[in-house]
């Protein structure tokens, strides 16, 4: 789960990190009032879950309240990577001397948190890592000890020469690790971490992603979820316990298991079709889940056919067949269903479906080819 900049900054403040002041506004008048309150030059920043906000025109400097309100007028309602801007963060502009990058994420290879820091901040860090890898310093953290003071100090000395800045930076890094672990993050970064002309180190941007598996035990973090910015069907899928990702094609997919669901999408493409979604219905054959899945898929007007691909191992095919029949009775499915069921009790499943007027095939290739034909 991604957080907005202002939410991430609040978590950073709670962890004792120095962060530039700022408040959220959702109308030009509110932005004007904040600009008056801060005085001088202010920064107006779009709050959407997307990188490249500056390049898209979602970040503007304003010399005073009038200009701030004008920028607000332009940026509010703007689309950045398909997301509509509904909130702005207004902050007083800083007098920047240097810009650095600091971030921490989970390292798959090392199976531990890893810091990445660079004195070249304010730019795309992946690009720095690709073009000038020596400029990015990595440090793995043993999760049992946490970030040790000497490690924070070592990283700080990669970024600054002046002792006062090094000391402040080491404190920022400890705070960042704290914010990362305390909130169950999978990634936390500051880009840029600035030093000001008067010698202060502070975060003027913040990006945090939360590990979805942490949310059951972190209600205050879950409360930060912005459901308005989620894509179509995501909230409904989450409530129903389904894994769902919307795509642009016309073949709706309903599959048990994430790996098989991906392989099904790939096979749709292989046979010349385009998948409309990824959907893992899981091991359950609960009709409520099937209903939810069908509702989510049919809400997409592009969908021309719905493909069921079920490999019954532990899941019994007859249970899934009953779920499909019940779901079809409860909601209006405006498109044809093509069904594949293989595994435990597949004959029984086929009878149940046949009695309700549905046909099921036994192979994945067959069902995908049938779906692609219907969608064409």
């Amino acid at each position, binding site marked *: 789960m991604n957080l907005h900049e202002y939410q991430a900054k609040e978590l950073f403040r709670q962890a004792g990190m120095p962060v530039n002041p700022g408040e959220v506004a959702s109308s030009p008048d509110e932005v004007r009032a904040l600009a008056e309150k801060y005085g001088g030059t202010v920064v107006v920043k779009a709050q959407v879950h997307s990188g490249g906000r500056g390049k898209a025109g979602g970040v503007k400097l304003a010399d005073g309240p009038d200009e701030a309100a004008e920028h607000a007028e332009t940026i509010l309602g703007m689309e950045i990577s398909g997301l509509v801007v509904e909130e702005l963060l207004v902050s007083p502009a800083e007098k920047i001397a240097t810009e650095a990058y600091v971030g921490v994420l*989970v390292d*798959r*290879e090392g*199976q*531990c*948190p890893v810091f990445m820091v660079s004195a070249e901040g304010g730019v795309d860090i*992946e690009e720095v890592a690709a073009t000038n890898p020596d400029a990015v310093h990595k440090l793995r953290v*043993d*999760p*049992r000890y946490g970030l040790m003071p000497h490690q924070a100090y070592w990283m700080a000395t990669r970024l600054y020469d002046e002792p006062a800045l090094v000391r402040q930076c080491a404190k920022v890094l400890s705070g960042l690790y704290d914010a990362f*672990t305390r909130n*169950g993050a*999978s990634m936390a970064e500051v880009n840029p971490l600035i030093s000001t002309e008067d010698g202060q180190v502070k975060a003027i941007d913040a990006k945090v992603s939360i*590990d*979805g*598996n*942490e949310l*059951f*035990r972190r209600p205050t973090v879950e409360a930060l979820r912005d459901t308005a910015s989620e894509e179509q069907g995501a909230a409904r899928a989450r409530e129903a316990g389904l*894994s769902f*990702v919307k*795509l642009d094609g016309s073949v709706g997919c309903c*599959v*048990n*298991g*994430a*790996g*098989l*669901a*991906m*392989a099904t*999408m*790939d*096979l*749709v*493409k*292989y046979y010349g079709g385009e*998948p409309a979604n*990824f959907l*893992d219905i899981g091991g359950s054959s609960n009709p409520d889940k099937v209903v939810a899945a069908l509702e989510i898929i049919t809400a997409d007007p592009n969908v021309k056919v719905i493909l069921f691909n079920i*490999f019954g*191992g*532990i899941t019994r095919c007859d249970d899934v067949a009953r779920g499909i029949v019940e779901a079809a009775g409860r909601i209006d499915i405006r498109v044809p269903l093509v069904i594949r069921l*293989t*595994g*435990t009790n597949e004959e029984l499943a086929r009878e149940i479906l046949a009695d309700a007027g549905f046909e099921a095939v036994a*192979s*994945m*290739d067959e069902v995908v080819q049938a779906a692609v034909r219907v969608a064409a």
Partner: protein
Amino acid sequence: MSIFADENTRVIVQGITGRDGSFHTRQMMAYGTQVVAGVTPGKGGRRFEGPDGIAVPVFDTVADAVAETGGADAAVIYVPPAFAASAIMEAADAGVGFVVCVTEGIPVLDMTRAHALARDRGCRVLGPNCPGLISPGKAKLGIIPGNIVEPGPVGLISRSGTLTYEAVHHLTRDGLGQTTCVGIGGDPLIGTSFVDCLEAFAADPDTKAVALIGEIGGTAEQEAAEWAGRHLEIPAVGFIAGRTAPPGKRMGHAGAIISGAAGTAEEKTKAFEDNGIPVARRPAEISKLVGELLGR
């Protein structure tokens, strides 16, 4: 032979009295797995009724279970996500050398600590978020259905559950049985890698070919391809799920995500092919390629 577990492996089940734990323990016992004890905190002293009138004792702790049953070689974990990392650490601390963790949804930061402790104790973790393994005709640790496998010459390694069943189903139907099918798990941090499994299969004289079923996210398949290119003497076949997955989106499995340019299906396919491993374009083709390489 088989890898990691066979008919002599003595198994403890953590979470044996839960809904999933009890169901799958009965399936494991019915398949012939030597389940010697179960663990559920607060339920020590009871007996767990398996199939065919067999019952095993339930203990409050893994340490008790190990001490009272004369030792266990493996533990299988069906514990809810909030307690699963702790269950792994408990098993490793009790000296169990092999832990299969089926649980999906464990916080990643919990797993950084569990993996670190397991490494220190010399304990191999399979998973988490995996279907476990099955050595056909011998034993199964986890949830892979016993009715789709057959003993034979193929070793199978996969990050997925039902996609593994799909591939195994074709192998079995085409007369290509398996030594062991291992589901290594769909999480970003897993204890046993493709390479670990390849090393084990390479040392098993009965395994004549290996199928590697990967997916988008991370670099485990690339490492496996490189290892196979250098050390593997038996033929291997690959498959990668997620060619149509958009970057930056998690495809069900916590570990199935393309980050930046890394972890794409193209990159993984190329790594396999560069190391002489043909890559199936459809799940049904995996068995076909294995058969060809075995001269069937």
